[in-house]
């Protein structure tokens, strides 16, 4: 499940209405998935993003132990060749305790002026929206506490009859 998807999800447990958004993400396994960068595409997504929800979700991923994050390959190379190698002090085997690929401290709190042409901004947004893939975890309804599982990258939002709105 990508964080852009998470940004669209809301709990539909009976009675919660708009208070069912955003779902609280708990990730236990994440994969960083390289996706081709398309600046126009990302720029058009920006206005649709609910920022607070995105930042919250990104933060939970950022605080995942390194061991829980699958990287695409050699860090800084291969599919990642378009990226600058990060001098984070971490290599895949290094247990920094933080997901090294997410620069959440640098994730903008909101769209900046002229973001459409700001490549650095767009690349950061591209990464957090499209390249972070939650494989295992849960989504929690903030109002009712109901947990929805994410398994093998697929969130399951089905409710029992009793739980749904009539």
């Amino acid at each position, binding site marked *: *499940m*990508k964080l*852009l*998807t998470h940004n*669209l*999800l*809301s*709990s*539909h447990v009976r009675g919660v209405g*708009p208070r069912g*958004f955003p779902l609280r993400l708990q990730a236990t396994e994440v994969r960083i998935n390289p996706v081709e960068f*398309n600046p*126009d*595409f*990302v*720029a*058009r*997504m920006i206005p*649709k993003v*609910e920022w607070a929800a995105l930042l919250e979700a990104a933060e939970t991923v950022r605080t995942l132990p390194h061991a829980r994050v699958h990287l695409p390959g050699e860090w800084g190379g291969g599919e990642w060749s378009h990226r600058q190698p990060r001098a984070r002090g971490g290599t895949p085997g290094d247990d920094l305790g933080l997901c090294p690929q997410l620069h959440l401290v640098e994730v903008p709190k909101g769209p900046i002026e002229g973001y459409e042409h700001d490549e650095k901004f767009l690349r950061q947004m591209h990464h957090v929206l499209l390249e972070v893939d939650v494989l295992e975890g849960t989504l929690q309804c903030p109002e009712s506490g109901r947990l*929805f599982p994410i398994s*093998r*990258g*697929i*969130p*399951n*939002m*089905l*409710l029992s*009859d009793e739980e*749904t*709105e*009539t």
Partner: protein
Amino acid sequence: MDHEAAQLEQQHVHDVYESTAPYFSDLQSKAWPRVRQFLQEQKPGSLIADIGCGTGKYLKVNSQVYTLGCDYCGPLVEIARSRGCEVMVCDNLNLPFRDQGFDAIISIGVIHHFSTKQRRIRAIKEMARVLVPGGQLMIYVWAMEQKNRHFEKQDVLVPWNRALCSQLFSDSSQPGRKQQCGHPERSHSYHPPCSICSCSVCFKEQCPSKRSHSMDYEPLMAGNCCADVSKEGEEENGFYNTLGKSFRSWFFSRSLDESTLRKQIERARPLKNTEGWANSTISIQPSRHSSLDLDHQEPFSIREQNLDEDVFVETSQKPLEWPRASAAVKHLHGDQQGEVRRNGDGNFLEGAHPSDNCVNAGNVEDGNPSASKILKRISALNSTDSNPDETISVKEQQPNVLDSRAFMRYYHVFREGELYGLLKEHVAELHVLSSGNDHGNWCIIAEKKDNWD
């Protein structure tokens, strides 16, 4: 009432898709051209939802947009996921999305699986809710009015017999066309099944030259099927006429709306035994054991498989023998002797441990040997008369799945104007932009009104 409707759908939609999901991964099918066009016309950067995405056939049509696939059936979603699509499991009746999140939504071959008008309306309203003002919704549903077949009633149970689903292709099939994700389980209605393929109760009664169909789009199965049939001559037509008549009795005697659904369900309940089904107004095609049937079915295999499924593109196309009418008829009559066999005890859907039958998507992707063997075997069957039993045994532990159990899928086929009327009267937040018929389906494109929410 809603509970009964949900039960019917669980048995005759969800459980069937779940049980038959593994077989879809091996087949490729074409995306409906007009749906593709709709998707390709969306602005770059659009957020799109495919509600009832099945194995994800439409999810990668347009790389400039973000398409999220949703389906009620876990196994189908797993298959889509294994192909790299962004997907989730959810219920059309309760979409887990915030309001106005999507720029466009497609619902291809989904709404016709809801068994009451209220549920159909709800499904549409849910999609309207999550659309941005100005956003568009495309809906495809199976039409009651078909050129070569006749649905006597609007609420039907259509059998899907995997054993008979051999390879099929259409003239326009392009070899090596791999981009489609699997097969649109929920959108199979487009092409009303050929009578020979017992995949559907919709039998052809005649076979006028199908080529006359306007083929703005790629020729569909029907076209090929008919062409084949017509080659066989008069005799076949007569045969199909007979088939058509006899199968009409299989359809529901009346539409399943609230007032009648309860009665139908109640009648169907005792359906735990054959007699119950046979006597009820819900008619079901007698089940066919593959082991027996394949033998007879062999004549049934035709190049196109029809099915009520969408057009299949076979990667290795094998010409199949056209059925021999007499053998087929004989077989059918024999079958019709009443036995609904396992269909009758109503347990096949539940008892067959559908979850067990669902092959893990990973395996499937690797080319589940069983599933692909089945395909090959069937084709071999057609041409070499090999022992049908072998085919069954291929699927080791799940002989039940192949077992002619004709999984019965519920459909509410739409009359002309019905879908339009539904939107006009009950979904005021949508404004219909266009509506028409596309190869046996009523399709509508509607727009969310501005300033509605």
